[in-house]
């Protein structure tokens, strides 16, 4: 099975973020970047499918030069080759614009399966994978935790609300957007890190892909969440208060 995994480099989760002078993006100098978490799960799923089925895993990422670090990490983890869409102006494109770039880069590969993360940890739009499917005219499913090849197509486990799952089948080629947590992520082995240097790493510029139309969606402004303290006193008997607390922890704070 030939699988393309689209991965995005995003600011590291623990990195302290500051808003830049334009007020439209964060200050990138001195920032640490990492592989978008759902994309790391998409890569993991692809590598497991390859190990079970044979085939090839191609990682693809769009972005400036620094994205190379994340691409090489994917190669070190076991992807076979990489395509880097070099673009310094991704911030000025909307999800449709980025998906068009990715679609153009994928077309000549004619893969059996395309995986993306469910959403990115920075913008959180959750659209790129879905638009990509539309542009490529392929069936798609989102929020996928697990993929199994059935010989004729795919059987996938999809996450619904409140602990419910759905199992669906779809033909290949297809696009799936992967949810975090379906598998345990592997580490890059030291041998893998060494081997990554010998793998094919192809760069194609956004200009060569010929897609640069004006964005239909533009980002107006970003802001840090304002800190707010709101203390709530739960009334009623201890039993009633405890029940209300559990309810809140479950559905508002979502921590139990």
């Amino acid at each position, binding site marked *: 099975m030939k699988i393309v995994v689209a991965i995005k480099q995003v600011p590291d989760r623990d990195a302290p973020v500051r808003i830049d002078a334009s007020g439209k993006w964060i200050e990138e100098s001195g920032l640490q970047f990492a592989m978008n978490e759902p994309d790391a799960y998409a890569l993991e799923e692809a590598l497991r499918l390859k190990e079970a089925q044979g085939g090839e895993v191609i990682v693809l990422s769009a972005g400036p030069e620094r994205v190379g670090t994340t691409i090489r990490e994917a190669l*070190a983890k076991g992807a076979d080759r990489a395509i880097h869409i070099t673009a310094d102006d991704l911030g000025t494109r909307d999800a449709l614009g980025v998906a068009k770039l990715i679609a153009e880069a994928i077309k000549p590969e004619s893969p059996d399966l395309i995986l993306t993360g469910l959403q990115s940890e920075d913008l959180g739009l959750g659209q790129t994978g879905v638009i990509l499917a539309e542009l490529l005219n392929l069936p798609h499913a989102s929020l996928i935790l697990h993929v199994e090849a059935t010989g004729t197509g795919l059987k996938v486990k999809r996450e619904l609300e409140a602990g419910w799952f759905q199992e669906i089948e779809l033909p290949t080629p297809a696009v799936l957007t992967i949810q975090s947590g379906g598998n345990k992520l592997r580490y890059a082995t030291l041998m893998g890190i060494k081997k990554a240097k010998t793998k094919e790493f192809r760069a194609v510029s956004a200009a060569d892909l010929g897609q640069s139309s004006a964005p239909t969606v533009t980002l107006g402004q970003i802001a840090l969440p304002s800190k707010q303290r709101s203390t709530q006193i739960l009334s009623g008997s201890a039993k009633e208060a405890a029940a209300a607390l559990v309810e809140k922890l479950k559905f508002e704070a979502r921590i139990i």
Partner: protein
Amino acid sequence: MGFKFQNVDFLHLDAGFSEDELLVRKTARGFVDDNLVPIIEECFREGRFPRELIPTMGELGFFGANLEGYGCAGMSNVEYGLVMQELERGDSGFRSFVSVQSALVMYPIYTFGSDEQKNTWLPALAKGEKLGCFGLTEPGFGSNPGGMTTTARKSGDGYILNGEKMWITSGSIADVAVIWAKVENEDNRVRGFLVETDRPGFSAKDVHGKWSLRASITSGLSLVDVHIPASNLLPGTGGLKSPLMCLNQARYGISWGAIGAAMDCYSTALQYAQTRKQFHNQPIASHQLIQEKLVWMISEISKAQLLSLHVGRLKDAGKVGHEHISLAKRNNVWMALETARMARDILGANGITDDYPIMRHSMNLESVKTYEGTHDIHALILGHSITGIAAY
């Protein structure tokens, strides 16, 4: 209960590491955070070596990481050092196991071994399917290994080994022991032998009652008329220089490892000082005396990082001297011990419990200060190097 480790990089050295170096550290850091940190306090309490982590480390390429071929990862010395740093951030005893397997067992086989020995042992040791130990120290000879009394006598087409080795890391779990002995028929020249631990006459007994390196196995070895074939002699060994070459490899790794232990203590102390409040509802980090301690720690850790990085680059360029490695081992272990002690102080009563890693690091580092050449012996090595006069 402890705090999540925060990277310690005051001088922005990370910006100077290569992409591969950072990836190697990420793998080792992830492995330690996910697999070792959650169980280490319990292992230390129970005096248990977490053997179950060996296969994963084998898969990741941690054993003999800076050797080429035979299933080894072929890492640079800086990359190897970063792995040691992360492992010892987890625990010095755990790192000791990897140091012994890599620098004291695989390195001598790789450097002094025959092709047959290399092909037999290295791939299995790299995967962690076979384990090794290094027997140099004896009950009567520690800092002065040249005085050793273990002997090898040529007999027919092999050797007969007799003697006692003491304080041997991984002794009772090893499949093969690298034993250093004086060869009677060769003017008592010191040579290295591979001794399979299931040979008649070989036995290992663990040292109990250790307050240090409790998550690592330390044993005494006894060799009574142990017959080995001549093919078990490490052919390239000759004289005390051979085991000292192995120690150099391990000491180099320790210089990085000690930084890891210190980083963990500092990261814990800093976060504790920022959250613990005393007097006027102020975090203790706001007090000048606490700040001075934190500043001492970060200064010394930063200097140690520069030192090991520089020595590592020298080693990668083939230009390192044993005295450079002595300087790094001596300085970094000392600074880690002092850092652990200051961190313990900052945590107050909490500092003495195993809810935090500090007391464990403190106790571990006492061994690290002693083994692989004590702090003072390294002073003498350095003194010898700069004055030309041996003062041992």
